[in-house]
């Protein structure tokens, strides 16, 4: 904001000067000016970037005038972009937009490890209540397995290593504080105006934060999602993943309800830290939507590490007894003596109390913001990225959406996020990495596929004596030889799958995989040494039909 008066004349946009004089709202401008001395100190680079962007800017201004669907091209706005929510998607879109020369503000709720209507924090779910703290707890909890492994390699401990929960929480929270600071710095260094408070949409070009109004040419809704706890009797005694990442003490005995990735990750964490863990899933198997064999394999490996799965068991009520312990009543019975009950039963988009209904913005049945392929909502000046749109709820996807949006809006490069072959990981213990189609999806879409699998005991386990195994699966199209999917469960899977995701995204064939020399001795080398298909699935129509099918599948994948 502070730079607006400088930027206007410097750029010499005729539209800017007169409008600068009739700023509709002056209060918030001066206040954000004062609260952000940093924008002044960083003037030189900003000036440079403005000059650099001048050419682009002229271009996209014209484009915008054409494409703004009724927005007044001559009206002046406080900001080119106002972002509500500074999580992965919002920060990415804001930074990139600012780098492209746009004037950007972003608002976010005050920092707290547990999110609510009034708390959040720069960095968002991923940094404060998701990927990062989760992975730190995974690291912490993995050590117990590593101690067990080390015994097989000649290590011995006088006493069994004990875990101190409070040390972990303190060190984890110090790291989160550091990261939320980094995110703030990233934004201010990109000359994005930070506003702390709850943003609400007042009209298609106005956002209110704590009573102050800001006008913006474009508004980005990137408020993410929050855990959802189903309303059963006693659900007030339960915790969600936010709380589970920041408990005052370690659970002695915990029931985790849910069979998705969050449930499995927490089951691994608490099991590794020596809690008694029970997982309750409605279905027969964990991880709906994943490859069937992976689903079976991961559940078996987790059971071997001591986690008890209660399948087809639905919670009905949580009871608190006099000694403070909890009981979980299900359709099959009651588990008593629980210190904690955790719901990992999905997440819901944060679309309440945002003023979305006021501007007539369309939501899906699940409460997510409905967007087109460019992340545009039903209101042309309002856009949305990340979990709030409930497309593919992954941090790197939100980053992709945010980056694509900044290009679309401020670089004159309409860009659609590309959802093909997006890899993902489950940081269960052992973890899962996967990219592309599952066997079930591939069979349905292609009919004729070759499936290569390997299920082996890794070198480390032969010495440790632990029952750890690795499962790998490659799915190739029988006709084109293209690798359609890769799924892996076992140590280092997420790290291993990333490089293969590049290969799959590039459309490489099984022959290309085979032509690559292995790195020995690794687990990953198995993926380039799968010579014989485990099974060939032939369900597709005969040749002329296959061609049709192929074309359709190629377009749809």
């Amino acid at each position: 904001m502070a730079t607006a008066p400088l930027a206007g004349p410097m750029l010499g946009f005729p539209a800017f000067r007169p409008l600068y004089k009739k700023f509709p709202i002056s209060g918030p401008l001066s206040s954000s000016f004062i609260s952000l001395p940093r924008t002044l100190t960083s003037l030189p680079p900003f000036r440079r970037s403005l000059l650099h962007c001048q050419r682009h800017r002229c271009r996209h201004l014209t484009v915008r005038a054409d494409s703004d669907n009724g927005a007044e091209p001559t009206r002046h706005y406080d900001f080119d972009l106002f972002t509500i929510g500074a999580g992965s998607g919002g920060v990415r879109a804001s930074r990139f937009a600012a780098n492209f020369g746009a004037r950007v503000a972003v608002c976010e709720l005050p920092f707290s490890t547990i999110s609510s209507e009034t708390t959040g924090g720069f960095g968002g779910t991923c940094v404060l209540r998701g990927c990062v703290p989760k992975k730190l707890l995974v690291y912490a909890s993995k050590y117990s397995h590593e101690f067990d492994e080390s015994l097989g390699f000649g290590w011995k401990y006088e006493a069994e290593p004990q875990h101190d929960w409070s040390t972990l929480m303190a060190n984890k929270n110090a790291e989160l504080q550091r990261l939320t600071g980094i995110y703030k710095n990233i934004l201010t260094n990109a000359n994005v105006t930070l506003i702390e408070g709850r943003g609400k949409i007042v009209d298609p070009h106005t956002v209110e934060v704590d009573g102050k109004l800001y006008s913006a040419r474009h508004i980005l809704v990137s408020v993410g999602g929050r855990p959802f706890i189903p309303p059963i009797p006693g659900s007030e005694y339960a915790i969600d993943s936010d709380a589970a990442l920041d408990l005052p003490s370690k659970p002695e005995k915990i029931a985790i309800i849910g069979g998705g990735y969050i449930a499995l990750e927490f089951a691994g964490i608490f099991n590794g830290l020596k809690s008694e863990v029970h997982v309750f899933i409605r279905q027969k198997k964990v991880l709906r939507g994943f490859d069937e064999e992976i689903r079976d394999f991961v559940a078996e490996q987790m059971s071997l590490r001591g986690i008890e799965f209660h399948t087809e068991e639905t919670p009905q009520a949580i009871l608190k007894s006099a000694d403070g312990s909890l009981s979980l009543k299900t359709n099959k019975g009651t588990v008593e003596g629980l210190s904690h009950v955790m719901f990992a039963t999905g997440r819901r988009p944060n679309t309440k109390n945002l003023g979305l209904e006021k501007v007539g913005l369309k939501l899906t049945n699940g409460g997510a913001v409905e967007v087109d392929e460019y992340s545009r909502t039903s209101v042309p000046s309002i856009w949305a990225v990340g979990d709030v749109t409930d497309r593919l709820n992954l941090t790197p996807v939100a980053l992709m959406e945010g980056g694509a949006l900044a290009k679309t809006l401020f670089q004159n490069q309409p860009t659609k996020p590309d959802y093909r072959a997006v890899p993902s990981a489950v940081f269960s213990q052992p973890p899962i990495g996967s990219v592309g189609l599952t066997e079930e999806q591939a069979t349905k879409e292609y009919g004729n596929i070759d499936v290569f699998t390997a299920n082996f005991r890794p070198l480390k386990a032969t010495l440790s004596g632990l029952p750890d195994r690795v499962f790998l699966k490659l799915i190739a199209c029988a006709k084109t030889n293209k690798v359609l999917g890769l799924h892996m469960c076992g140590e280092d899977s997420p790290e291993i799958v990333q490089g293969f995701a590049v290969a799959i995204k590039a459309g490489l064939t099984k022959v290309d995989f085979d032509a690559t020399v292995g790195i020995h001795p690794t687990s990953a080398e198995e993926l380039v040494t799968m010579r014989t298909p485990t099974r060939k699935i032939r369900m597709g129509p005969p040749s002329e039909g296959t061609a049709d099918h192929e074309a359709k599948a190629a377009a749809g994948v």
Partner: protein
Amino acid sequence: MSRKMLIDGELSDTNGEEANYDFDLFVIGAGSGGVRAARFSANFGAKVGICELPFHPISSEVVGGVGGTCVIRGCVPKKILVYAASFGGEIEDARNYGWEVPENADFNWRKLLQKKTAEIIRLNGVYKRLLSNAGVKLYEGEGQVVGPHEVQVTQLDGTKLSYTAKYILIATGSRAHRLTIPGQELAITSDEALSLEELPKRVVVLGGGYIAVEFASIWRGMGATVDLFFRKELPLRGFDDEMRAVVARNLEGRGINMHPRTNLKELIKTEDGIKVLTDHGEEFLTDVVLFATGRAPNTKRLNLEAVGVELDKVGAVKVDEYSCTNLPSIWAIGDVTNRMNLTPVALMEGTCFAKTVFGGSPSKPDYDNVPSAVFSIPPLSVVGLSEEQAIQQANGDILVFTSTFKPMKNTVSGRQEKTIMKLLVDAETDKVIGASMCGPDAPEIMQGIAVALKCGATKAQFDSTVGIHPSAAEEFVTMRTETGRVSVSSRKTNL
């Protein structure tokens, strides 16, 4: 090997004529390459015999074992020791994650050794079974080439067996090479290092190659004092210079004493251990001196020169692109040919040999974009060109993308060690021509990257791949801005 010999009809013709051979193929040496070639040839219908020396963890002229260097004295036991040694660092790292580990966590070398040997014996058995299941006849003893179609196997009891074969394959590998300095007999090689009776408290490692840095990491991780001596400024000659510097820094950070540009002059036995004299006039007292000063091909006792098989200066068997020696009936693969001494390359050469000679499809091993790893702690892994190679080989500008970061695990553990990743891109074609990484899990991460490089993936294709979060590997697909550009004219990095 001329192509026309491989035409189906003619091959069977020749078979018909020369059906009096005992074997279609006789392989000398049952290591990675030999076993692969033998099995695959047998699968193509060839009658195959193979000979190997009796099993022993420490190799010599008269002992070896089915499985070869990789399984018995290389990759496998080495990696087992690396696993064991890594726990030392893990225990340190665990503390800031809230684990109270007794200060004097104890490491029992003998127990590890016993289990390692048991595992190797198991694998030795697995390899034997692989051969017998494929219908390959295994002979225990020392093989020699007697003529272009004849081998002799000297068995343990001294009896000699003679066999004729249409083709002979030399796959005898290599052995650690010793430096000739006074007192050299006091030093050990990697063979013995993998089977020491006692865990040394003080170790001197001589060499700057991957074996040297791996053993330095192993012993350091197990608690020994380690001094590493090497001739150059940095270890790992041939690797990317930036990576070499990072490896050196990490080794030092883990407590290894680095002695660059230093040679050993003499070893003297004393009551308190081995006294080591350097060419800088320094003296060190140590329990063990490891020579990791290269390996030499095992060709001495094969009688190759007598039958006219050409060797190169270092004694490696000279072969053409299909692995055929100057005699059309004698072929050679693996370390004995000293091309690219890696297990998976020997496997590739073995497969290509079988396809060429018995599968009816002439196949040349392809040495482009072969990935490799150094299992130092933390490890290094590379595929494609180093920056220095790229500068030498490229015709146009090269873009250099590097990312140096603190791995997430270290943010809490407090370990001051950074991971570095690098991509080299041909500015004109956008093709990624080199990738390297030093940091935890690098070898596992690099395998998939190698598939992409092998098939000519572009930087744009890397960029279009979505990351896996949070992982270290995702950095490879999120390197947006180049850190340097090497232009054709200047040939210098504008860093």
